[in-house]
């Protein structure tokens, strides 16, 4: 990876540094669907996107299913009932025509990106990171398309892919996370407004890290992005996703779906740094993050690796999973979940072993501070035909202060006697003697907490692209500032 590419990403994450500096709102005229959710809303969105008939039908089928579904309540999170009729499901900057060069983009939008630390102009010039920036619902500008085109890599807004590559989209959309999968995924299927599509052709190693920044801007707008990444035989792609949202008193819903497909010998590495607004110190406001992320190791010897650093959101409900269908396929899940103040995180993974000699590895680091509740929920399931399946799970929890909670809920199912499943779990506290030792050597308290927590998370941080990891470390420290009295 070019260092310029990482420099850019690094800069973007570095900006996450100064507390929650993203509490700004960009004043741009928005075009919205009427409030509420009905078949008409779905038709409105589909029409706005200029979608073909098959896509509209797909959405409507999802909507009809959704109205019969019940919101799940099994997670260890508590929140007031969401009124789905009291939200907007589509918001787009009014002045945005389809397909455009950067010069045509509203300068105010570009300013927003600058505040986010992802100056697109600069990126065009010097960085190797292609950014498909999602501003509320419409992808505003996609850079680096040309270079990727030369390699045969498709990286574009999913709305564009639906028009330009309908066969690929039809072939894979909804095949990993079915329309009927769960309440939030089904809702997303009905109303998703945009997202990212990536296709890496056979034998191609994607020449750059792909990166998307999501940002929820308009108030009372849910964001429902949809991401589909397909790695064809023998290909490789690494994808970085960073998320922020402005400060608001009301809660906002975010229900994304991410589908990954890895064919024979293909590898997908998907990294997330999630810093959605977590609400204030009294628990007011913040994002409700209900996300379905799943990867399908469809081919032999394929590999999917999830790495996530979750520091934001009032509520996190997220289980990036791997279906290990192909023989000898590998699934990995590396996670850091930090919950401070009144944040609630219920996150983990599912590793579904279907093929022979499939391997999975789960490393989860949960950090709780303030009055936060942090739950690891994970499933390892070995099916009858998964001869010699292997899983290793390590779940470590770190508590800061006496009012927070850490919970570990592992589910293990094995229908094949040759399976080997290991589970290790620890819970620890930042010890007073560790803090004193740091202080005595001149390290101030907040920095000492950051140092100790980063040490605790090391195995996961190492999975991030190196320079990106440096800045993620800072984020880890900042999200815990003042957590030790």
């Amino acid at each position, binding site marked *: 990876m070019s260092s310029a590419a990482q420099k850019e990403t690094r800069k973007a994450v570095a900006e996450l540094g100064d507390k929650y500096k993203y509490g700004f709102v960009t004043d741009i005229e928005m075009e919205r669907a009427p409030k509420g959710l009905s078949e008409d809303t779905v038709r409105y969105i589909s029409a706005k996107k200029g979608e073909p008939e098959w896509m509209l039908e797909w959405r409507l089928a999802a909507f009809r299913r959704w109205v019969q579904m019940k919101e799940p309540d099994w997670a260890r999170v508590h929140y007031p009932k969401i009124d789905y009729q009291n939200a907007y499901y589509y918001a787009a900057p009014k002045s945005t025509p389809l397909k455009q060069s950067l010069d045509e983009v509203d300068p105010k939008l570009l300013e927003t990106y600058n505040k986010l630390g992802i100056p697109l102009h600069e990126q065009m010039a010097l960085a190797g990171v292609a950014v498909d920036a999602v501003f509320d619902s419409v992808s505003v500008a996609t850079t680096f398309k040309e270079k990727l085109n030369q390699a045969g890599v498709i990286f574009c807004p999913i709305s564009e892919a639906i028009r330009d590559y309908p066969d690929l989209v039809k072939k894979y959309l909804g095949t990993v996370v079915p329309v009927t999968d769960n309440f939030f995924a089904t809702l997303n299927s009905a109303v998703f407004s945009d997202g990212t599509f990536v296709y890496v052709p056979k034998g191609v190693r994607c020449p750059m890290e792909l990166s998307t920044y999501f940002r929820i801007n308009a108030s009372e707008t849910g964001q429902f992005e949809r991401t589909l990444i397909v790695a064809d035989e023998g290909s490789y792609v690494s994808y970085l996703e960073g998320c922020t949202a402005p400060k608001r008193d009301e809660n906002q819903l975010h229900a994304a779906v991410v589908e990954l497909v890895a064919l024979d010998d293909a590898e997908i590495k998907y990294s997330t740094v999630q810093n959605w607004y977590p609400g204030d110190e009294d628990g007011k406001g913040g994002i409700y993050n209900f996300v379905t992320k799943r990867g399908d190791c469809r081919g032999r010897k394929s590999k999917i690796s999830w790495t996530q650093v979750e520091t934001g959101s009032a509520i996190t409900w997220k289980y990036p999973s791997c279906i290990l269908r192909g023989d000898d396929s590998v699934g990995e899940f590396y996670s850091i979940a930090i919950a401070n103040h009144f944040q609630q995180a219920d996150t983990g993974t599912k590793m579904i072993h279907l093929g022979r000699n499939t391997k999975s590895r789960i490393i989860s680091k949960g950090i709780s501070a303030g009055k936060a509740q942090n739950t690891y929920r994970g499933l390892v399931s070995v099916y009858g035909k998964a001869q010699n399946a292997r899983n290793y799970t390590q779940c470590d929890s770190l508590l800061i202060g006496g009012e927070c909670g850490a919970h570990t809920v592992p589910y293990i199912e094995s229908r094949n006697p040759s399976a080997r499943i290991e589970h290790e779990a620890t819970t620890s506290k930042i010890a007073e*003697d560790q803090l*004193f030792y740091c*202080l005595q*050597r*001149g390290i101030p308290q907040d920095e000492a907490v950051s*140092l100790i927590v980063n040490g605790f*998370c090391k195995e996961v941080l190492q999975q991030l692209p190196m320079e990106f990891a440096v800045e993620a470390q800072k984020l880890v420290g900042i999200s815990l500032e003042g957590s030790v009295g």
Partner: protein
Amino acid sequence: MLEIKNLHVAVDGKEILKGLTLSIGAGEVHAIMGPNGSGKSTLSYTLAGRAGYDITDGSILYKGEDLAAMPPEERAAKGVFLAMQYPVEIPGVTTMTFLKTALNSQRRARGQSDLDAVGVLKLVRAKAKALNVSEEMLKRALNVGFSGGEKKRLETLQMALFEPSLAILDETDSGLDIDALRLVAEGVNALRDPARAMLVITHYQRLLDYIVPDRIHVLAKGRIVAEGGKELALELEAKGYEHIVGQAA
């Protein structure tokens, strides 16, 4: 350098130090000896500013400033170093990272600029060799799985690195065999300096064969009960604490 007057310290409401008075000048090495429970560790933690060690009376002046008013990290930046009896483990944080973070934190507090990784590495390497601290040790997580000797060598390395004005060595000999003790003592002796004061806290006379103090104070029941030159250590060794403490009482 250090001027302690009538110091009373309570831990959990229980008075441990009961009117301790002690003065150390620049360039001097003083030893505090005393039986278990006499308040030796309480004194070292109080000087370093550990939470929970409440000064109820008396004063501590360090270079003419009120030490008790400074938070522990400020004391460190101003040159107070405590080599701990039980150095703590910090999993996942390499020793080198820790040294760099500490060194730069102190520099920043003093208004100096950060040293980059290469600069820190050079500095550490130059000091590590004499203390037999290997590159491999510097890459391991701080004190995790270190032997007793390795831990104490690393404490001494930090002392060499931070170049404190006042170094307090709390039971540096505990957990060391004779070879390790000699190595650590040599490291400490190399740091004797006209501008530096040292306070060596120990239960046994053994350490003072290697680090020879200018003055010895005997601490018992929270007070200094006897003082003298280095020969006092031998007397203690020969007659035991009971004898001296009993005499003072």
